[in-house]
């Protein structure tokens, strides 16, 4: 080569150093890649767009519980319920968050929320917090302000028309300022309202005309002592808290005397549904005298109102201006979401929550220095302290505070809301809620509405849960004569239940019509008709041998955990007793009878013995 110009040293140094370094690095790359498993278990669910490689390490056969029996891994994969990055092939990438994958494996709360994305029904066995959350969303009136798919606003807030006949302005002011001071069980949340917003709202509310009140009874002097007795015999305490006992479903009546005007109370008791067409309270049949006595009893509890009433200081002009402002504030705070008032439409005022489950916590505001929560926990905090995530300098959140909401309920709400996704899930993955049953029509339907039967009783998956046993199938369980008498004078069958059917004073003709409707329309096809009779003596022996008396009371022996059986011969349809004993309690949803199934002959013997009680 050219000796006069040798190659500079750096050429060789750079070239060979780089060459060896490159070769070494290529070997490292090859070695690293060889560490990758050659075979991967991969689960492709095309319908959901899911590619899950979890089974490369986890065996679906080891899945605890029987969840996979209903949710075949072939159809759902893993990440739909568990989260994580299904396509990942390393434990860290599959389980943890990373810059490219923000959501690590679901927490327990997120897993339960995932159930709710497909299961739209209000209650879902196996997802208690989700079900509870959906119930709370309805009970607490969240749907008044937020659009939440699948949840209907129950009649929890009174109509406000005619408020001037019912309460005093001072009471409304005090209520708006702090409902908890007037009723510890208050359902209306605590709004943050200064006095200059409360006064116009009160002015607006007192401008609303309501139905005319019923004229007061003329006969006799009302007797508070009689009134107190009526309140007890009518079982008002089933729904209302009275003298510190009972209640839970309707307002506390302890302070009703100092809150409600006697004239309004009298009208409500005698003509409930004309005054309050949407109330959940049944239309009791009370005589004017009885109603007057009850009002007198309530008025006896009246506590003099010490709060000053600035209302009278307002001149008509001021009141008129205030009314316009109040109407605006009333709408601004979303009150029409729950309350009917004048001509205001019931429109949700706050942001719809139908896609909340898709929000990522990383995009949501966080308290300074707080660890990143999962979405249900974030929502729970927001629900308990609505201003927790207000940005500095921004308008404070208008959301009212739900005081008394337990942490568990708040988390349940978070789970229910985190399940909401406006997602293009394939239709056959979505388990829709049972289509709403049409309420019974015709004259019987009018009575069911009048006595508000479905506020307490469940029927066709709808209705309340206050009564222990659904009405479905009741027509096959009881005898006509007993039912007719029971409706007019409801005796207590199940001593262990705290909710007892109110004595509404159902008239004989009404009871007759309802009995016919129950027997003809609410039969249970699973209860076989015309079972042969057995032997009562053998039945008595079997009753003793089976220790039925450890729950039932009969002929003065036994306990009251279950229904009393004395008189059951006139009450129960023997065919039902046979079916219950032979086929198990599954024939009655909510029935807590032991699951043990008796042989047919023994069941017939016991039924025959009971028929003679």
């Amino acid at each position, binding site marked *: *080569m*050219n000796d*006069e*110009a040798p*190659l*500079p040293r*750096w*050429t*060789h140094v*750079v*070239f060979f*150093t*780089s*060459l060896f*370094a*490159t070769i070494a*690095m*290529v070997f*490292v*790359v090859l070695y690293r*890649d060889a560490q*990758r498993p050659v075979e*991967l278990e991969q689960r492709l669910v095309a319908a959901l*767009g899911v*590619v899950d*490689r979890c089974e490369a390490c986890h065996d679906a056969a080891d899945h605890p519980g029987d969840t996979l029996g209903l949710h075949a891994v072939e159809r759902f994969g893993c990440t739909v319920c568990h989260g994580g*990055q299904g*396509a*990942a*092939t*390393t434990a860290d*990438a599959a389980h943890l968050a990373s*810059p*490219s*994958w*923000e959501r690590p494996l679901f927490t327990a709360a997120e897993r339960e929320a995932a159930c709710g994305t497909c299961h739209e029904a209000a209650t879902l066995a196996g997802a208690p917090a989700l079900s509870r959350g959906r119930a709370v969303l309805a009970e607490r009136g969240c749907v008044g302000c937020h659009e939440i798919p699948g949840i209907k606003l129950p009649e929890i807030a009174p109509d406000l028309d005619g408020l001037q006949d019912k309460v005093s302005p001072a009471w409304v002011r005090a209520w708006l300022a702090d409902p908890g001071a007037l009723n510890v069980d208050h359902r209306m949340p605590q709004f943050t309202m200064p006095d200059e917003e409360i006064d116009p709202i009160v002015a607006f509310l007192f401008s609303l005309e309501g139905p005319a009140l019923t004229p007061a009874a003329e006969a006799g002097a009302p007797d508070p002592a009689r009134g107190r007795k009526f309140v007890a015999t009518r079982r008002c305490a089933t729904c209302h808290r009275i003298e510190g006992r009972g209640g839970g479903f309707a307002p506390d009546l302890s302070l009703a005397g100092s809150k409600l005007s006697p004239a309004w109370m009298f009208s409500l008791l005698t003509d409930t549904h004309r005054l309050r067409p949407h109330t959940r309270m049944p239309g009791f049949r009370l005589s004017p005298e009885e109603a007057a006595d009850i009002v007198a009893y309530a008025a006896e509890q009246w506590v003099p109102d010490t709060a000053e009433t600035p209302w009278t200081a307002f001149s008509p002009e001021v009141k008129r201006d205030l009314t316009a402002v109040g109407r605006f504030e009333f709408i601004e705070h979303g009150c029409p979401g729950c309350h009917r008032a004048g001509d205001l439409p019931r429109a949700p005022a706050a942001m719809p929550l139908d896609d909340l489950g898709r929000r*990522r916590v990383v*995009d949501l505001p966080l308290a300074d220095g707080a660890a990143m929560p999962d979405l249900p926990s974030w929502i729970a905090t927001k629900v308990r302290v609505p201003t927790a995530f207000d940005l500095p300098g921004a308008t404070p959140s208008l959301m009212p505070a739900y005081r008394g909401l337990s942490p568990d309920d708040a988390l349940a709400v978070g789970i229910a809301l985190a399940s909401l996704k406006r997602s293009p899930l394939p239709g056959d993955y979505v388990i829709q809620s049972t289509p709403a049953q049409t309420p019974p029509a015709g004259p019987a339907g009018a009575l069911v509405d009048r006595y508000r039967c479905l506020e307490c009783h469940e029927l066709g998956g709808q209705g309340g849960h206050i009564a222990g046993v659904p009405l479905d199938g009741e027509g096959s369980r009881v005898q006509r004569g007993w039912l007719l008498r029971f409706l007019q004078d409801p005796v207590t069958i199940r001593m262990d239940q705290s909710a007892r059917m109110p004595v509404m004073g159902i008239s004989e003709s009404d009871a007759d019509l309802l009995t016919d409707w129950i027997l003809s329309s609410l039969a249970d096809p699973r209860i076989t008709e015309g079972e042969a009779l057995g032997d009562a003596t053998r039945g008595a022996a079997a009753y003793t041998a089976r220790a039925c008396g450890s729950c039932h009371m009969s002929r003065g022996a036994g306990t009251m955990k279950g229904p009393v059986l004395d008189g059951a011969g006139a009450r129960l349809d023997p065919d039902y007793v046979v079916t219950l004993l032979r086929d198990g309690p599954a024939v009655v949803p909510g029935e807590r009878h032991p699951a043990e199934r008796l042989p047919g002959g023994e069941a017939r013997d016991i039924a025959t013995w009971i028929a003679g009680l």
Partner: protein
Amino acid sequence: MRAFFQRIRDSVFRVGWPADERKALLAMRSSFLLHLHAPKVRPASLRLAATWGLGLLSLFLYGSLVLTGVYLMFYYIPHPDAAWRSMGDLEFVVPYGVVTRNLHRWGAHAMVAIVLLHLGRVYLTGGYKAPREANWVAGVGLAVLTLGLSFTGYLLPWDQLAFWAVTVGSKMVASVPVIGDAAALLLLGDQTVGEAALLRFYVLHCVVLPVALTGIVAFHLYRVRKDGGLVTSEHAPEPTEGPRLWPAWPHLIYRELALLAGMVALLLAASMLFNAPLEPLADPTRTPNPAKAPWYFLGIQELAHYSAFWGGVFIPAAAIGALIVLPYLDRRTAGLGRYWPPERRWANSVFLFFAAFFMVVTVVGTFFRGPAWALMWWPP
């Protein structure tokens, strides 16, 4: 048998191993790859400081990007439903997927940087002047194509980073007066970045721009030789001793091989140490704050923050226009081939001022701009 292989070798390599100078010259003339070089070069060309190897490194990087790019194309699906998942496949199942993507990503960033440095080197040494005007213009075109390739490639992972950087970039295009909206529509095929934009960017990135770049590179290299080689060696003083010209083999070729080997080693090391960024799947409803363009456009984005038209359109367009017309206006030939000659102090100062200005605004835009493009310290 040996003669058989000998015949095959002779048919490909006309000249055997260049053991002496005559054979070396023959090899340089007869080999396709080597004939791009002159058979003999001026010793001044061999100094590292003559070019810092920047043009050659650009070419090597381009070659490596083509190779890794083809491998990535085997696994990439240019559709919004699948593009981001392709990144996951590269990460989790494709053999050497991660390192290939890293090589491509870091190689692309390096190529943008080195192409721009190459442009600066040629400017400072007056390499744009006659007879190299046309090649300078071709070089400016190559720099623009390089930026275009990088920008179109930026969208393909279809993650948040890609989506919003390209959204910002297309907004800049749309702010051009008169033709801006039409140009943005032509680029995106839609009003927003979406399925059409992804396919267009893919075709541009993998077909249109590489073909154009390859063609212009061929012209560029051809003209380097036809215009007299390096401006830095052309105007260097003749050596007082030794030969006037040295054979390219081995003096030039070995240096180039060393550069190639060094570049490959550095790139591979970087690709093994640092993973290419990947953010969550693109979500048009989730705007990052701030949304930032790729780093090489952040200077322009920073300027556009002050004035969309003047900063985002006029200054960049004027800069490119000035670079193109420059050789036809500046016709003085004094001081060529040196980095800081007294005759070119004024010209080089202006250039360095603008380069520094762009660097400062780029650094500010990259590191010191937080949410709502507000100034912030880094780290915050």
